[in-house]
């Protein structure tokens, strides 16, 4: 029992600190709200230290195999915590500037992180569902946090209703699988499928529901409809959050399903993901071109990137061929995507000021004249998202494409490349606006020193990882040796 408790020590600590923070926040005057922020950062930091200190070398189970502790979960948790640290940095500035600095944002954020950590370590269908619901409920509330803003309320409502629908589909899928196999344990489901292939149609029936729920969480076409509205409507600090860390958690959840439970249904889920992937890359990249709002444009860009991420998951079949699992490419992809995404949305925060969200593309015109350094940082984000070397976005795409070709799905790689080229248009358009157009207004960037430093760091990290992608890739391969 003690060992089991030790295994979930990071989660326990995070939960305790979040609860304490909730109480603490109720008792401090609003002008000292930044204390909540600092304590939230501390909670993340402590949890991150605990995760790294007890980094699992082998796979261990706890609580009747409902909780898994393996290298992948450790890595995913560590990435989520670090990314969230960045997110809180950016968010604090945004919330203060726009006068909505409330403790709830950070408390909800911490609970969301807890949900993600549980998803990453789930050993049974029930744990996955618990983690997912904890995450989703926090996100709904965060989107709605800016109560006076009609778009935010509308976005929250849409997100909530569609999320509930997806949740229902997931539960339905889970209940079918449970009904057939009689177990919630992922490993046992896996064994059941292996020895009961005559139940295949029914299993696939359940699988489709589960994959649809995953696709909703990730935002793959045609289950992506919530993404543009929520990204645009939510406060930028929340958009920043939704677009990054939960994607890593959703990736972990996908691996739990497709690898731990449904490994013997590989052709089926691969087929589904291929369709979703192509649709996502096509729709995401093409619709993004028509957007004039940068948050909405980045929303469609997320959809396109999810398509690419799915390619990484699809290529898991090349395990035997090269000794490197395609999942490692997908992990690399999702982590670097999260890093680029917080950078890009963080930049929107950086450009904004009270009463003005710099979320129209026109706001970026002539930025290079006004502030060459930050124009350069934004250029790094855009080039990296578009997949231009030497930035890390290029390597992320490269590794995925390499594995896809190794898997023998070369036509899929061609499709991916074609849509990447189409996608390059709208990223480069931002660069063009910054460097070649005349500024509309000469308002200077009004952001704190911390914000400037953190976003520069973010940009340089992308450059550094682009110059030596091996740093991160070696780690990803190491932890994804499933």
């Amino acid at each position: 029992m003690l060992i089991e408790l030790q295994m979930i020590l990071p989660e326990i600590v995070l939960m305790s600190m979040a609860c304490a923070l909730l109480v603490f926040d109720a008792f401090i005057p609003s002008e000292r709200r930044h204390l909540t922020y600092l304590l939230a950062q501390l909670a993340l930091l402590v949890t991150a230290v605990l995760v790294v200190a007890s980094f699992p070398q082998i796979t261990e189970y706890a609580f009747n195999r409902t909780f898994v502790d393996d290298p992948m979960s450790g890595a995913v948790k560590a990435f989520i915590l670090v990314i969230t640290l960045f997110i809180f940095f950016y968010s604090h500035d945004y919330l203060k500037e726009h006068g909505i600095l409330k403790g709830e944002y950070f408390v909800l954020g911490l609970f969301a992180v807890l949900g993600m950590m549980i998803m990453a370590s789930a050993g049974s269908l029930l744990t996955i569902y618990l983690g997912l619901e904890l995450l989703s409920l926090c996100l709904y509330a965060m989107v709605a946090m800016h109560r006076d803003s009609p778009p935010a309320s509308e976005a929250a409502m849409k997100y909530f209703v569609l999320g509930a629908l997806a949740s229902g589909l997931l539960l339905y899928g889970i209940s079918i699988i449970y009904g057939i196999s009689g177990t919630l344990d992922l490993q046992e489901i896996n064994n059941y499928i292996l020895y009961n292939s005559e139940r295949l149609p029914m299993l696939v029936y359940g699988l489709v529901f589960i994959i649809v729920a995953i696709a909703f969480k990730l935002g793959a076409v045609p289950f992506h409809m919530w993404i543009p509205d929520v990204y645009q409507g939510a406060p930028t600090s929340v958009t920043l959050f939704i677009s990054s860390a939960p994607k890593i958690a959703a990736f972990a959840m996908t691996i739990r399903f497709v690898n731990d439970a449904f490994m013997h249904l590989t052709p089926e889920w691969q087929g589904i993901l291929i369709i979703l992937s192509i649709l996502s890359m096509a729709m995401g990249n093409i619709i993004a071109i028509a957007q004039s709002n940068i948050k909405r444009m980045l929303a469609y860009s997320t959809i396109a990137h999810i398509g690419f991420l799915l390619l990484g998951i699809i290529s898991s079949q090349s395990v035997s061929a090269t000794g490197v699992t395609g999942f490692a490419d997908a992990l690399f992809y999702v982590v670097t995507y999260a890093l680029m995404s917080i950078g890009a949305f963080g930049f929107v925060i950086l450009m904004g000021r009270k009463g003005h969200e710099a979320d129209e593309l026109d706001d970026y015109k002539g930025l290079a004249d006004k502030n060459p350094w930050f124009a350069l940082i934004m250029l790094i984000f855009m080039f990296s998202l578009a997949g231009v070397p030497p930035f890390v976005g290029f390597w992320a795409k490269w590794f995925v494409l390499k594995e896809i070709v190794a898997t023998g799905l070369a036509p899929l790689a061609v499709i991916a490349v074609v849509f990447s080229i189409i996608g390059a248009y709208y990223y480069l358009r931002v660069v063009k606006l910054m460097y070649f157009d005349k500024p509309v207004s000469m308002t200077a960037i009004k952001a704190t020193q911390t914000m400037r430093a953190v976003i520069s760091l973010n940009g340089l990290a992308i450059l550094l990882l682009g110059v030596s992608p091996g740093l991160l890739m070696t780690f990803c391969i190491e932890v994804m040796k499933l």
Partner: protein
Amino acid sequence: MFNDLQTLCLVIVLAPLAGALLAGLGGGILGRAGAHTVTILGVLVATICSFVVFKQVIVDGMPPADFTVYEWLSSGNFSLQVGFLIDPLTVTMMSVVTFVSLMIHVYTIGYMHDDPGYTRFFSYISLFTFAMLMLVMANNFMQLFFGWEAVGVVSYLLIGFWYQRESAIFANLKAFLVNRVGDFGFLIGIAAVLMYFNSLDYADVFAGAPDLAGQQITLYGTEVWSVMTFICICLFIGAMGKSAQVPLHVWLPDSMEGPTPISALIHAATMVTAGIFMVARMSPLFEFSETALNFVMFIGAVTALFMGLLGLVQNDIKRVIAYSTLSQLGYMTVALGASAYAAAIFHLATHAFFKALLFLAAGSVIIGMHHEQDMRKMGGLYRYMPVTWICCFLGTLALIGFPGTSGFFSKDMIIEAVHLSTLPAAGFAYWSLVIGVIVTALYSFRLFFMTFHGSERMDRDTWEHIHESPAVVWVPLCALAIPSIFIGLFLVGPMLFENYFAGSILVQEQHNVLATLGEDYHGPWGLIVHSFTSPMILLCMATGIFLAWIGYLKQPDLPGKLAGWLKWPYRVLVNKYGFDAFNQIIFAGGARKLGALLWQIGDVKLIDGLVVNGTALTVRWFSGVIRHLQTGYLYHYAFAMIIGLVFLLVFFVHRIGFAGLTP
């Protein structure tokens, strides 16, 4: 992580780079004095370290070192690295490059004194030093190519340094385009190396060369070549571009549009010798293809003789030296073809010194004459510029190969080596070089007499202001004059006949002309005595000097009459054999016409109109249409999800069969 040698090598390449970056990016803050201080400091550090490495390798006999300092990326068994190969050949080049570069940095302070682009200029020449060092120190083809292109870029920037001048822009574009032709061959050569050796590391490639010697490659149709010949000729085409061999020589005379220190540094002493160095470095490949060696020797011989002849009719002081450079590069190339790689490198080193000296002396004259470069408006300058006069005289003696000077040892050895070579092209090459000696002496002394002696032909205004150049100009002259005269005396024995290039240059037994020469070698004095006992070369030289004396001192109207009598040959020479006109009309003109045609029909109508704009418009239209799917209505969204679900269910469950769909 780093041992001493690695640190030292890193310092050598990074010091000039740091200087270049500081002067280039921080030039505004550092100011003029700051810019020249940091760059000279950087190059000085590099020079000292190079000498230290030179001592370690040559004097202390350290074995060659080959190491990688940084691996950029690896993909399968192919990797791109930054690494250094330190052996006698490398350290020789490093020392020459850094020393000449240092002299030119100092000289530039005086020459560019009033130029508005002062800091930019220092940044460029330091950057050039960095690039050149990367090139010579490389241990793999990729880095070689990096250095190769980087020196090309800096050369382009420097030829067009005075970018307001129409002629400078024309010249740098020309240099760039002609070099592109050469680089194209070079790149194909490197690609072929990668294809056949499966590696870009020198060590792997050279080790694998003997195994590949017999292999054939089918080029097109039934044309079958030896792989080695193909690789070597492609690589040599690169060298032809960079080292300005006929017919890719046309850019070098025009490159004199750049400031004089550049003409000295890049277009005489270092960059143009990159091709020579590269071929010497690749000796383990070239040795396996006699066809390629013949080709090299033939091209070199043509360049040596015919480019020298052009020097006779030029009136611009710098252009005469430029044609002389072409001719001397031809000598080096012939030596390469004769497998006398050591002689080529030896001539490269001595030439670097005396040609830099001549250019800087010319620069000094140009300063004294207030940027007048036409020799017809000079004359009698020895009275006003004595230091320049003496230095120029010493440089001229070295250039024509007067017995005892460094040019004598290096050039004579090349001629003797070719004489012994058994390749089919050797006969032609030998006589070209011997006639070349007369031509060299003639144009060298023509320049010397027209500039420093004879009647004073400048206008009065200029005449009043003629003065000796400041110390920063003449000190480098003297510093270069010393090695120009003496370095041959000390180096000829070790470099050519002792085991100097041990391991870094490979010569096969049947090609080894230097070994044959070495049997009769009795020290440098023996060579001088020999030149008097069998005086053919000496007589050729004397003929040249005598002709120059007659034509430009004794009977100054004779050349004009001669040109009148020999109208046709004279016009051929003045028109530079028509290479420029041919390129201008056929290649430049033709390419422009073809370009205009393709632009009008292919680009504007087909590609822009139909493909690019068409695609873009289609995508944008499509994008505009399907964005309306995003209606904003919640029930539409939910509906889309359900449709998607149903579709997936039907599609995937159907594949297995609905029959099994029982609980």
